[in-house]
């Protein structure tokens, strides 16, 4: 394979005696949707936190777009085009949906240290933000404070904030978590439209979503990747059935 967009090399994360990430080497190619699945406690969220720069790995390296980003913090990685959505919606709750997205636009436009313009009248921030809100289906809800949005809408807003910076890679941590059937279906449809335009690393519990969307699936158990392959191969893999899919059926 050509140089992947994102790659981890022997990534290790230990919390005391617990190894949450165990010599993990994963990659996401440009335009690929790579799903990571695994039972609870497999280290999925720990992995996302390391990729996003919130947690420093104990060993190993992370490469993104040809550069070693292991030492970079969360903000620096975001500015390089690695956008993350949180498993539990993390928003500025008193700001409107539009304010939240406009801030994400601002973060990527180098407008931060401008002290004098009225931010809410700045069309160079508001117009792109409105476009992204429309893209995720929140056009009519732009003036609602983020804290007052319904659960599913907050997940859509999470995604909008990630998209606002025109990222090269989306790091989505269980975007369907806690959603009902209808909302999940909408989110799957939305992710399908984003596929190919952005490389996506999707950490997800919802098997329907994973098998409907992924180009490649990796299975994480106790921090280790026990299988990587096309969705149909993973479904057929005996080890995966034992470790995970079978367990789920119990």
């Amino acid at each position: 394979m050509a140089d992947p967009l994102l790659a981890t090399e022997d990534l290790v994360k230990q919390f005391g005696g617990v190894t949450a990430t165990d010599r993990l080497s994963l990659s996401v190619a440009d335009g690929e949707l790579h799903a990571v699945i695994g039972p609870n406690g497999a280290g999925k969220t720990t992995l996302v936190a390391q990729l996003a720069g919130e947690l420093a790995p104990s060993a190993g390296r992370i490469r993104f777009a040809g550069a070693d980003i292991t030492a970079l913090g969360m903000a620096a990685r975001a500015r390089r085009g690695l956008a993350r959505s949180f498993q539990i919606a993390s928003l500025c709750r008193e700001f409107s949906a539009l304010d939240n997205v406009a801030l994400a636009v601002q973060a990527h436009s180098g407008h931060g240290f401008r002290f004098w313009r009225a931010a809410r009248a700045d069309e160079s921030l508001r117009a792109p933000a409105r476009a992204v809100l429309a893209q995720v289906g929140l056009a009519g809800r732009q003036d609602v404070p983020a804290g007052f949005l319904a659960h599913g809408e907050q997940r859509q807003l999470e995604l909008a904030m990630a998209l606002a910076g025109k990222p090269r890679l989306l790091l989505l941590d269980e975007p369907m978590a806690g959603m009902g059937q209808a909302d999940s279906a909408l989110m799957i449809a939305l992710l399908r439209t984003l596929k190919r335009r952005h490389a996506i690393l999707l950490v997800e519990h919802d098997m329907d979503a994973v098998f409907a969307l992924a180009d490649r699936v990796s299975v994480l158990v106790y921090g280790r990747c026990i299988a990587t392959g096309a969705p149909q191969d993973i479904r057929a893999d005996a080890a995966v059935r034992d470790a995970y899919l079978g367990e789920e059926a119990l």
Partner: protein
Amino acid sequence: MADAELASAPPRRAAVRSETALLVLGLAILVLAPLTAQLLGEPFYIRLFTRIAIMAIAAVSLDLILGYGGMVSFGHAAFVGIGAYVAGILAYHAASGEALTTWPIVIHGSQNAFIVWPAAIALAALAAFVIGLVSLRTTGIAFIMITLAFAQMLYFVVIALQKYGGEDGLQMSERSRLFPLDLGDKLVFYYLVLAILVAVIAFCRRLVESPFGMVLRGCRQNERRMRAVGFPTYRYRLAAFVIAGALAGLAGILLANSQNYVSPADMAWTRSGELIVMVVLGGMGTLIGPVLGAAAYLLLELLLGSFTTHWQAIFGPILIVIVLFARRGLYGALAGRPADG
């Protein structure tokens, strides 16, 4: 549109109306009361209003980081004190004729506001930069304690300055000279302070509505989110901390000039606590609230203090009641307006 996220249209319009009424009334009182006091031959009230306006400047500057940035600085009086001491010490050397330093550069004392005031503001900003550089590595209780510790260090430094009065403080023989104004005139000085207060509020209002201000307010609501979206939040918070420190230094200069005297009490930790009380009492994240808070605090101090020296025993419960029942402070209760996000 400011605060588009808040409330639906009809109550919002009513809030704007009562807010405008409150602003006009407040400004009218601030403009007319000292003039009336002058005409009635009651200079005491001019001094009182001057003190209120100066404390309001300090409280507004604290609101910038406390109400909008979520930084509970328990050492804000230190920056007020630095502004005051720079003005006092330069005036002392101007009066004695002795140079402040002779090596490596010679610095003379001065009474010229165009030299003294920028120097005092710059020094307060520098102190805020150094203190912020360390303190802003922490959050929550640790931040409160570290800012308190730094302020106490500076407090004991000025107490140790025997040459400048140590614990007894330092007398200033005259006020700064700000050509063409005669700052020795109580009323002229008051209106200068009032103009500065209005300018500081207008400046802070612009600031919190700017792209920079949106990042600062975002940090208060969810700092992790702001970092995840790509903002190096530490730098933004530090910049706000320095701006607030500089404005507090400005308040300190005015304080020293108003009382012709500087003392360690001006930067004691209790003063930092009073500033927090003024902001919370008036309404955090409103900029106007801290002015109300400063006025309410100093007037209650005067009123209750005339009954008993233990006035704080009465003030304490009043504060608790206001904080419990008017969550957005006096300004929220009077203007019917929630705080900015």
